[in-house]
């Protein structure tokens, strides 16, 4: 069986779903961040696969470059927020950040 677009898209889908589950179930703020990275990588695989297997050309690769760079920025900010959260709550468990709950 030749490797085609579908194969790569399915790998991307697996990464995406794993990321979603990770974001939904982890209570550690940094674990949630890792879930976000997985989701973004799943999307990136799709972009690069389309750039190889369709007439999209290099545009797909450029978009995935932007995603990588912005994900790094997002990780830096999210980590700064997580550190601030830890400074204030002395834990990284996001379920404890419930002061605003009525």
């Amino acid at each position: 069986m030749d490797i085609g677009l579908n194969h790569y898209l399915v790998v991307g889908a697996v990464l995406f779903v794993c990321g979603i589950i990770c974001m939904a179930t982890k209570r550690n703020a940094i674990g949630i961040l890792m879930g976000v990275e997985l989701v973004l990588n799943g999307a990136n695989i799709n972009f690069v696969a389309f750039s190889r297997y369709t007439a999209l050309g290099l545009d797909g690769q450029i978009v995935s470059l932007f995603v990588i760079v912005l994900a790094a920025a997002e990780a830096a900010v999210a980590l700064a927020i997580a550190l601030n959260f830890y400074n204030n709550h002395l834990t990284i468990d996001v379920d404890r950040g419930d002061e605003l709950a009525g």
Partner: protein
Amino acid sequence: MTGEQFLFWLLALTTCGGAIAVVVSQNVVRMAFWLVVALGSVAAIYFLLHADFVGATQLMIYVGGTIVLLIFGVMLTASGPYVKIKTSPGDMVIASGVGVLVLFLLIGTVTAVDWKQAHRSLVGNEHAEYPPAPAAGYNKSNPSSGNTARPIGLKLLGVSLEDTDPTRKDAQNLSAGYLLPFEIVSVHLLVVLIGAGYLARAKRRVPVGADAVVETLAAPVPVQVGVYAGFWRRAAAMLIDGIVISAVQVPAALLMGPLTEPPSNAFVCVSSLLIFLYLAGMESSAYQGTIGKIIMRIAVTDTYGQPVSFLRAAARTLSRYLSGFCLLFGYFMALFTKRKQTLHDLVAGTLVVRRK
């Protein structure tokens, strides 16, 4: 099984296995390790897809940068080794159930599409080759295509090398390309850099009575330590400085030629240098400020209320560009920072205070 198939299945296995292990493991550092495995394999998949530049970027930024940052965050926030914050089994069951459903949905959608036909109808050629030959990558049969680094670089500047491709006649060359997104991302990164540093900074406790100590130190220009100049006063000072500078610059430009013509490069260089010397020199002089600042009764000091050195004033002047690059956000920071500092004040470690 060809080499490509073997590599694909191997990489697909490590990618998916790594991702699933991230979900399953409870120890956050192990999660990070499995994330390294997953993302590293993703980088290899990019190489397999002829996207060498994206693959290298993935390795450098994701695996070498972001994950190191994440592990660093884990180390800073773990109160003991191997902290586990367990997921409750109920959550896990529900989430995996929903996840598996979504996965089947996605796989069903993907396989339902006839990509060959879609590609041919998009290209508008019933007999277009599918899959199309890789435009770039490790494609040595077409030496002119080379690898992806140069085409991507040109594309970011707005020049497309793919216009020789007959299937892409509609996307004509010399569009703006990705220059604007590239610039926006650059500014975004700069803002993030500053913002992350601001968020994560250690809370600095100013020792009690520090201001009083500073008060006793002699300063040549009597300044009111702790009375910071407001935004509007500083804006007015800048306006006056602008008038002063253009009062010299415009006649000089008139001597060089009519104003309708763009100035020569040499003129721009010399006048920028003179403006730089004026700003940095005046701020580090005994006057502690430019003419505008003298008129508006404000002065530049360091964080201890002392006059600034020329080097510091130069750093402050150069960082003004930084403030300007963030869409003038750096200047507006004086509105809300604690000591009414702009971005260039923060960079150079200076304050602007009222004179006595």
